[in-house]
């Protein structure tokens, strides 16, 4: 298939003779129940993949409706309260039901045990329980939607959410509470697995950076989420009994809620982005045939992000009446948390140096991630800087900023990961040219959607506005046009990935010639992953080891 020195490293087995392995985790057992009651981390990952895709498209539909309403300055498509329900649902679904579980619950679930050389996560039943909790949370969210919606915004700001709205706040809060426990259990499972289930020889510094990133994200999940849970419990109790821990007229402090809420929800940003960074490390290394530059620095920067991530939450509240002195402290700490991200970006860039680079779809997405995440990260510095934050916060600038990080960063990384490990998960390849087209479409659509929003933000257009002054229309039309392109960019992978399940080329064990343990086993893997426990005798990303191993295999066979 591949020429001597082609522009791709993709090497598929001879399609005439190749077959999907007879026994693998997909056909090991049959019937719906064998999936719904499974303890296999790979099957749970697939369940998650299907469900988060479902919720992603629901959340995406709301995004589409929001952009459609904003096409004109007049409030003409829907009424104000409906619009508020749209963006609330968009936020809740995208954050709690898509971004938080996206990479960890799908790719992480599938790959962490394999990357560590283990047969499963430490607690398979808890893993399944966490999927069920996620589904209950998701169902309750949909219930809140069907029953009439909720319009608090995803931030549940008190006293608005506690005393001034008559929508299904408690249903939505319960949904997030339950989905939160799903996230806690996933994180707990990962931490225990990483500490306890590594195969012989798998030292901490031989672990793939994907695992490091998930370790850091799991710490945040386990330690942060309960604080969100208690904040939501208090909101629900306050709504039910009308007592005022967050109600200023009864002596409560509404900012206390925000402290508790952001104590989770800022680290949640890192829960969302860290696993994506893990994906990028794997992809960049594989497609430049080179060990990640400064492995240790990248590993520790993940942990540093997790640690510093807990010290910066107040930057969401700078103008909300917190003490100016503490705003100073938090602004300074915010500047510090930006540094590890910068370190990662440069390390990835220098991984390319002296590499042997090819540009398959995952790599294109990874390049997209690097560019967009850099912009997203640097515009975060605007918002961390106190004086600048005053003008920019609560405007479209902040909307653009976090979409650059979350969509431009995390979603790109998620798609990079899905494309990268798709052959491993399904045993089949997707059509390469179509997927490259999708990657480019996504990139263009994304920039067209969100770059104008930075300008809108500096012009002062407030977020969560249903109607806006007419002079903002041109930029809004651009943004809506971009959203259309972006929507197509996201539909495409849906279609060709589904197509590839049946018609894709047989991928073979290691189509990308990658070094991770997951690539040394059959695709799709066996239910027990490894026939015998592997022994890790080389560093991560050791391409020489891979070459030697391949040579040996060839000589043995020959």
């Amino acid at each position: 298939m591949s020429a001597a020195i082609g522009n791709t490293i993709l090497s598929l087995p001879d399609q005439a003779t190749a077959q999907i392995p007879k026994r693998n985790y997909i056909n090991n057992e049959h019937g719906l129940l064998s999936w719904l009651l499974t303890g296999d981390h790979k099957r749970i990952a697939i369940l998650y993949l299907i469900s988060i895709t479902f919720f992603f498209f629901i959340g995406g539909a709301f995004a589409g409706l929001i952009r459609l309403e904003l096409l004109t300055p007049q409030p003409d498509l829907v009424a104000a309260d409906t619009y508020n329900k749209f963006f609330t649902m968009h936020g809740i679904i995208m954050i709690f039901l898509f971004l938080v579980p996206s990479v960890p619950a799908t790719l992480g679930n599938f790959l962490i045990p394999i990357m560590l050389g283990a047969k499963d996560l430490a607690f398979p039943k808890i893993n399944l329980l966490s999927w069920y909790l996620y589904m209950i949370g998701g169902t309750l969210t949909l219930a809140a939607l069907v029953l009439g919606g909720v319009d608090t915004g995803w931030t549940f700001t008190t006293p608005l959410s506690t005393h001034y709205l008559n929508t299904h706040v408690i249903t939505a809060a319960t949904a997030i509470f339950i989905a939160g426990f799903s996230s806690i259990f996933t994180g707990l499972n990962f931490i225990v697995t990483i500490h306890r289930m590594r195969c012989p020889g798998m030292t901490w510094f031989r672990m793939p950076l994907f695992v490091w990133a998930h370790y850091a994200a799991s710490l945040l999940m386990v330690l942060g989420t309960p604080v969100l849970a208690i904040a939501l419990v208090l909101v629900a109790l306050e709504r039910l009994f009308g007592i005022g821990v967050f109600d200023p007229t009864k002596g409560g402090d509404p900012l206390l809620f925000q402290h508790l809420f952001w104590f989770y929800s800022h680290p949640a940003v890192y829960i969302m982005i860290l696993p994506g960074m893990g994906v990028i490390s794997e992809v960049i290394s594989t497609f430049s045939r080179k060990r990640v530059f400064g492995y240790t620095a990248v590993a520790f920067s993940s942990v540093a992000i997790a640690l510093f991530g807990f010290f910066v939450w107040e930057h969401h509240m700078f103008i909300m009446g917190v003490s100016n002195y503490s705003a100073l402290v938090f602004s300074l700490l915010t500047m510090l948390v930006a540094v590890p991200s910068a370190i990662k970006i440069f390390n990835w860039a220098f991984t390319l140096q002296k590499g042997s680079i090819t540009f398959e779809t995952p790599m294109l997405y990874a390049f997209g991630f690097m560019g967009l995440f850099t912009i997203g990260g640097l515009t975060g510095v605007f918002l961390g800087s106190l004086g600048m934050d005053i003008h920019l916060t609560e405007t479209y600038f902040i909307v653009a900023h976090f979409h650059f990080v979350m969509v431009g960063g995390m979603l790109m990384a998620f798609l990079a990961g899905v494309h990268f490990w798709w052959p491993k998960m399904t045993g089949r390849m997707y059509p390469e040219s179509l997927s490259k087209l999708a990657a480019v479409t996504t990139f263009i659509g994304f920039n067209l959607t969100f770059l104008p929003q930075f300008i809108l933000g500096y012009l002062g257009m407030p977020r969560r506005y249903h109607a806006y002054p007419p002079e903002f229309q041109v930029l809004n039309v651009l943004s809506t046009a971009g959203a259309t392109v972006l929507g197509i960019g996201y539909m495409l992978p849906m279609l060709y990935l589904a197509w590839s399940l049946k018609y894709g080329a047989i991928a073979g064990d290691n189509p990308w010639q990658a070094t991770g343990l997951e690539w040394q086993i059959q695709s799709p893997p066996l239910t027990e992953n490894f026939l015998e426990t592997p022994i890790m005798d080389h560093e991560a990303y050791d391409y020489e080891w891979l070459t030697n191993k391949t040579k040996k295999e060839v000589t043995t066979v020959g």
Partner: protein
Amino acid sequence: MAHEAIHTDANDPQNVTNPEHAQHHIVTPLQYTYVFATLLFFTGVTVAAAYVDLKWANPVIALAIACFKAVIVILFFMHVAYQSRLIKMTIGAGFFLFLVLVTMTMTDYISRSWGLW
């Protein structure tokens, strides 16, 4: 199959499957009884102390006793005294993060009254 297990010495120091292992230790009922008695004794002390007016020292004493009781429950009833460093660090991390929550939030509440800008 595709995977080739590379066999190295099983006693490889790099073998880290189980580095954080601690020998399982059984605490005897007698030790438990000592702990139990201590806990009851300090419960009495803390109640008694509450009835004496010691101004600012009252809450300090009450919390100090509560912390002490919690520590011995953690160390002996929960066997942490005999556990690996990993478990000790895990617990430490929990309390550390709780302190982060308290102190960092308090930076806001304490300094709010320092002045209005």
